[in-house]
């Protein structure tokens, strides 16, 4: 099982690469939508990374609770096998 630090290190790198942003901008308190300049369609790419790397499918009804990267780390940590 990945530690929270492992998760943060891994997913931050993947997100920075996929969305072409500076990894320093990905902090636990940073808002996901604004930081990644997401819309309802490009959000799919974040969902896809989490599914591909952790085997976790983010349910549509869960999306509203993922406001910050900290929320995302919590979500993955709680569901990883």
């Amino acid at each position, binding site marked *: 099982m990945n530690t929270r630090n492992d998760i943060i290190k891994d997913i931050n790198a993947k997100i920075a690469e996929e969305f*072409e942003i500076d990894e320093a901008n990905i902090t636990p308190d940073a808002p996901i939508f604004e930081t990644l300049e997401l819309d309802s369609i*490009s*959000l*799919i790419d974040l969902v896809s990374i989490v599914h*591909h790397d952790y085997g976790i499918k983010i349910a549509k009804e869960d999306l509203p609770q993922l406001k910050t990267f900290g929320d995302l780390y919590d979500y993955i940590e709680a569901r990883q096998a």
Partner: protein
Amino acid sequence: MNRVVITGMGLWSCLGTNLDAVRDALYQGTSGIIYSPERKEAGYRSALVGNVPAVDLKPFLHRKFRNTMPEAAQYAYMATRQALEQARLDEEYLTQHEVGIIYGNDSVVEATMVGLDKFRAARDTVACGSGAIFQSMNSTVSMNLACLFHLRGINLTTASACSSGSQSIGLASLLIRDGLQECVVCGGAEENNLYGIAAFDGIQAFSIREDDPTRASRPFDRSRDGLVPSGGAATLILESYDHAVRRGAPILAEVVGWGFSGNGDHISNPNVEGPARSLLNCLRNSGVQLRDIGYINAHATSTLIGDQREAEAIAQVFGDYRVPVTSTKSQTGHEMWMAGASEVIYSILMMKNDFIAGNINFEAPDDVTAALNIIPETRNVHFDQFLSNSFGFGGTNSTLIIKNA
């Protein structure tokens, strides 16, 4: 009826990625064809291909825009930037006026394959990614360019195999002539990756002269053995004469006629009657006299039957007038969905610079192509009107006549 003029051109091709480089390559008879070890390794029968430079859009476009653009749209973006700049159409003008786009494209094989491979591996449609749907539609080029350049007029893709680029110019010219649009971005794009035309290689249509890549594409020559695939993009800005004058745009040439026809028979074997009718329709629609055509840019792709059928059609229509003919595919290979647009640009570059680029690799005709006056080496000559042929699978034919300005 409005006169229709061309005020901007842009290219991304195996002969160069700007107009000056392409003009020089045409004049010098440079070949853009290479041998690709990657294709051979992958299982291609013919590893010959046009050497089209990859595009790096990072300096120009944010990831969220690039995410929806397959290879053909990337080429088209670069070509369209050039064309808009030459036509002096900036962002401010485009956002305040109704400019349309009709662009030729007829495949999105790699983008479709990549998206579906991800879906099948993950057994999850989300794995396709957010850009996959936009990348895998045949109208991807026109839809991306329309959004990126703020084009608010007609937004349409012409998909008619190897006449797609030519038909885009023809259709746009009609809309402008009849006053439905004042200005339209036209062109054609062709993916040039490992997958786009793999199935085309499979039907053994390509030259296998792999030991001599630059001499493999030899339209009309008696020892031709098939076409050489290539790709890239070509963009032209068409607008009404009055619109161009009002804007102070540089008028490069005029579209004086478009003709088209369908063969209505075999899906891959061309005939003579269909192309001949396309030529005649174009001549009739333009009102141009045969002997005023100073040059024909032939469709000829370097296939045995296709080149013969076109030679017969041209000879039939032009009779005893030995109009100079070349196929620039001898240098570029077959740019397919892009070809009808790129070859109009190649011919305009010749017309504006007083030369006809030689049909390289033409050493001797066969019994049928001997009917034509094929120019084997670059000739310094002035001409003011040319005719450009484009024919495609399914028997779709398009002919344009362009006049100097």
